[in-house]
């Protein structure tokens, strides 16, 4: 945690009367009602005003008509994790309004559809009834349109109540409807109706916004689009997939980018995107393409990964590059398809029978969804094995502020491939011979024009020349080499990120837990005077630094979003037994993105504070 962040926290410690740029807004509505563009306008307006924001969409696993909550966090300190408590509720959904109101903390604000008559529910909240129907009535005669426009009305109301700059609201609206002037005009009038209404109400709450300069140069993107861009700039050539929430938009956005940026002048494609009949076929195609030398990937989620188990073992044992982006959702089984989780670590680390081990990457931000998806291709080709990028729904489908995505500075690493010239020089090769001592053999690609280029790829036992073998010694030697290769990956995978030093306790986390953990560090320090260091692990097998971090702390709290403490389990298997006792589990599985407060409370509880 930077000292700036620290001060930031301290400064608000005594909660000031006016709460500026530090609260959360939740819009409760039903999906398919068109609130998405309204929420985007809100988010962008704040962003354009230079105020750090993050937006999280909590949606049901159906297409239309069920409760949906969109939460925007405004944080002048730059915290982007989910905030557990809601400060400003916009209650548009009668079905959930009562529960939504009941869940608020005293002093919170409720903007709601007047007919719902929520004001009677509690006396400790600031209620602002809004006659949405009356307000949209003049805007459009079309009932269907009015249903959509109601949403823009709350944008106007909030703009008025919170003090959003109208110019920025209009600019944001322009970005959303720029292409459609008619829609633009209509929506603007709806917003104005909301503004007008707000002008007439007396403000009875502390929440307000104020222009800052904390978002200059930043972008807003979701992790799936970032992963797609990572693949685009890694030169992906074959993409196969089978639709599944929450990974679908990885390939859909990638396909769009490829169509735009990867066709030749005469319209030919330098890529293939193929929708497979299921995940077995999707991974099979990736394995085939990777074997033939393409940079191939697929994206899926838990159920798809389970279906890929057999092929994942073939990829490991036959040593074929493959990139699998797993945007995790809540399991087991079909589970909660629209909720976020980190529950696939163990099953993916040991995906497939018989001593199989897989390489895992853990992006912790949208930037890393971009960079790690890119790196995954280099690693898959370098280590000639499947590489799993474990993103999740929170990272993948929510909007995050980020620094501009960095252009890759290193050339593509295509790994150990022998071409015709090499073979002429060498006079031949042995596919699975460890000539370099790193456990990685050299491979050739089909089509290489040399009589010695070919080898026979198989999932059965094989010798250094890739010949079929059931010999015990040959098998053991090959398996020992595969383990050496795997061990070698520790040093090549993205290293952990360590912040702080010298504290007695440490926090250890991965993936999308990062924002909440960083905020929790600040809370522990500022509120409980408990300093803690932090290591974010970014890949499995773990780097040596993980061991050192644990060794350097009395207690290490392993924060993760699952039931079975799977990250802690992988650490337990990896660490020297003498260190295992230092690990403490802070495992949460709620389906909601992790929030800092829950982490802080849990750590304090275990620390006996």
């Amino acid at each position, binding site marked *: 945690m930077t000292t700036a962040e620290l001060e930031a926290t301290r400064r608000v410690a005594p909660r000031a009367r006016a709460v500026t740029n530090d609260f959360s807004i939740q819009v409760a509505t039903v999906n398919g009602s068109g609130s998405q563009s309204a929420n985007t306008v809100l988010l962008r307006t704040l962003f354009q005003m230079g105020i750090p924001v993050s937006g999280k969409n909590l949606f049901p696993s159906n297409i239309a008509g069920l409760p949906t909550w969109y939460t925007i966090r405004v944080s002048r300190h730059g915290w982007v994790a989910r905030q557990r408590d809601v400060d400003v509720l916009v209650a548009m959904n009668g079905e959930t309004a009562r529960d939504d109101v009941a869940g608020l903390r005293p002093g919170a604000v409720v903007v709601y559809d007047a007919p719902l008559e929520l004001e009677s529910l509690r006396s400790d909240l600031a209620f602002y009834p809004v006659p949405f129907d009356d307000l949209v009535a003049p805007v459009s005669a079309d009932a269907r349109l009015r249903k959509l426009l109601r949403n823009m009305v709350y944008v106007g109301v909030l703009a008025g109540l919170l003090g959003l700059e109208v110019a920025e609201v209009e600019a944001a609206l322009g970005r959303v409807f720029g292409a459609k002037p008619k829609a633009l005009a209509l929506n603007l009038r709806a917003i104005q109706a909301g503004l007008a209404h707000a002008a007439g109400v007396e403000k009875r709450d502390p929440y307000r916004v104020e222009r800052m300069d904390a978002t200059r*140069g*930043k*972008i*807003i*993107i979701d992790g799936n689009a970032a992963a797609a*861009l990572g693949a685009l*700039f890694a*030169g992906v*050539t*074959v993409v196969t997939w089978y639709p599944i929430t929450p990974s679908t938009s990885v390939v859909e956005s990638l396909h769009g980018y490829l169509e735009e*940026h990867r066709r030749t002048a005469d*319209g*030919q*494609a*330098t*890529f*293939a*995107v193929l929708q*497979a*009949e*299921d995940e*077995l*076929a999707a*991974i*099979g*195609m990736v*394995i*085939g*393409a*990777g*074997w*033939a*030398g*393409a940079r*191939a990937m697929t994206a899926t989620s838990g159920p798809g990964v389970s279906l890929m188990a057999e*092929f994942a073992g*073939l990829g490991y044992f036959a040593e074929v590059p493959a990139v699998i982006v797993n945007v995790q959702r809540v399991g087991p089984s079909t589970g909660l398809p629209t909720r976020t989780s980190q529950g696939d670590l163990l099953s993916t680390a040991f995906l497939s029978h018989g001593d199989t081990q897989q390489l895992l990457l853990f992006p912790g931000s949208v930037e890393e969804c971009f960079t790690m998806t890119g790196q995954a291709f280099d690693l898959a080709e370098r280590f000639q094995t499947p590489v799993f990028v474990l993103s999740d729904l929170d990272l993948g489908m929510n909007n995050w502020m980020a620094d*501009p*995505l960095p*252009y*890759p500075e290193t050339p*593509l690493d295509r790994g150990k491939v022998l071409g015709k010239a090499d073979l002429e020089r060498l006079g031949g090769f042995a596919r699975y011979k460890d000539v370099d001592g790193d456990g990685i053999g050299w491979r*050739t*690609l*089909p*089509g*290489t*024009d*040399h*009589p010695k*280029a*070919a*080898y*026979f*790829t*198989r*999932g*059965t036992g094989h010798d250094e020349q890739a*010949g*079929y073998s059931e010999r015990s010694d040959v098998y053991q030697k090959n398996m020992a080499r595969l383990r050496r290769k795997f061990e070698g990956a520790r040093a090549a995978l993205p290293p952990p990120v360590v912040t702080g030093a010298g504290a007695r306790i440490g926090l250890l986390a991965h993936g999308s837990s990062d924002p909440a953990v960083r905020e929790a560090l600040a809370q522990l320090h500022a509120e409980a005077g408990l300093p803690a260091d932090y290591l974010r692990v970014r890949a499995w097998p773990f780097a040596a630094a993980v061991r050192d971090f644990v060794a350097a702390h009395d207690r290490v709290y392993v924060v993760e979003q699952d039931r079975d403490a799977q990250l802690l389990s992988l650490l337990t298997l990896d660490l020297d037994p003498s260190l295992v006792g230092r690990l403490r589990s802070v495992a949460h599985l709620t389906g909601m993105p992790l929030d800092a407060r829950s982490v802080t409370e849990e750590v304090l509880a275990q620390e006996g504070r």
Partner: protein
Amino acid sequence: MATPTAAAPRTNRLGLAVVEYKGGKTTLCAGCGHNAISERILDAYFELGIAPEQVAKFSGIGCSSKTPAYFMSRSHSFNTVHGRMPSVATGALMANRTLHGLGVSGDGDTASIGIGQFINLLRRNVAMVYVVENNGVYGLTKGQFSATADLGSTLKSGAVADLPAIDVCALAIQLGASFVGRSFSGDKKQLSALLKAAVAHGGTALLDVISPCVTFNDHEGSTKSYAWLKEHDLPVQELSFVPSFEEIAIDYDPGTTREVTLHDGSRLRLKKLEADYDPSDRARAMARLMASESGGDVLTGLLFLDPRAPDLNARLGLVEAPLATLPEARVRPSRAVLDAINASLR
């Protein structure tokens, strides 16, 4: 490498002798139909003068799926997992469209565990030869029925097949496949012609080759035995193949014989044995096949052909060069592109 001299062995148009197309020693049972098919396959590529390096072999799991190890060692080969080879081949052939893809599978590998991927391979019309070495049983697991076992046929144990067999040819034609042929491992001439035509085709060329399992399904009561085929093999045409690079034009009687030009310009000459069998009429071919099933006859020959159906890579509009080896400059967009994208996200 053999160069054509008076003394040297017969070589093909590349100057390669047939030994350059050989593979490892077979580990299959003596007399297994699969071994004969391996011979026909390597002969076909040899005689077509296709460089082994340009061929990629794919297989699933089974005795049949082992055979790619027993021919054309100079070709890359991928022995994948059971029943899922089509997806691997599809991926590889998208990655490198210049390869000659050859899939070798069994009836269990294709029609039982693999039926789903098989169907999708046909629908996509992936440009490859797909040979089903069909013996009606799972040889490698010691002789259980597969989905192509005919209703009523028996195992040595006496077990009787009680489900309607899947006729992969009828299925393929119904699903819109572009090249469907059937043959018998014992019919050297017909199988060779069909294999060459399949290689010359520009989409998925399905060859269902009845290939007796001498160990588990060559007994009385089997409908996939040598004896049964000798009895019931019913060729619909007599086939002869004329490669694109041969200019001979013998004239023939158009009444009894018909010539089709294949994707690569080669020609297949069909001397009709069954007068009104028309391999270009999907519905009628279907009907005829469904009729034969009940009869117990095994219709062989070129059962259906549509030489013009677009293959997968054509539909994907791929560049000519293999995707696998495109240089970085062609696959990683410029810094300016990323700048523009970042700008659009501000």
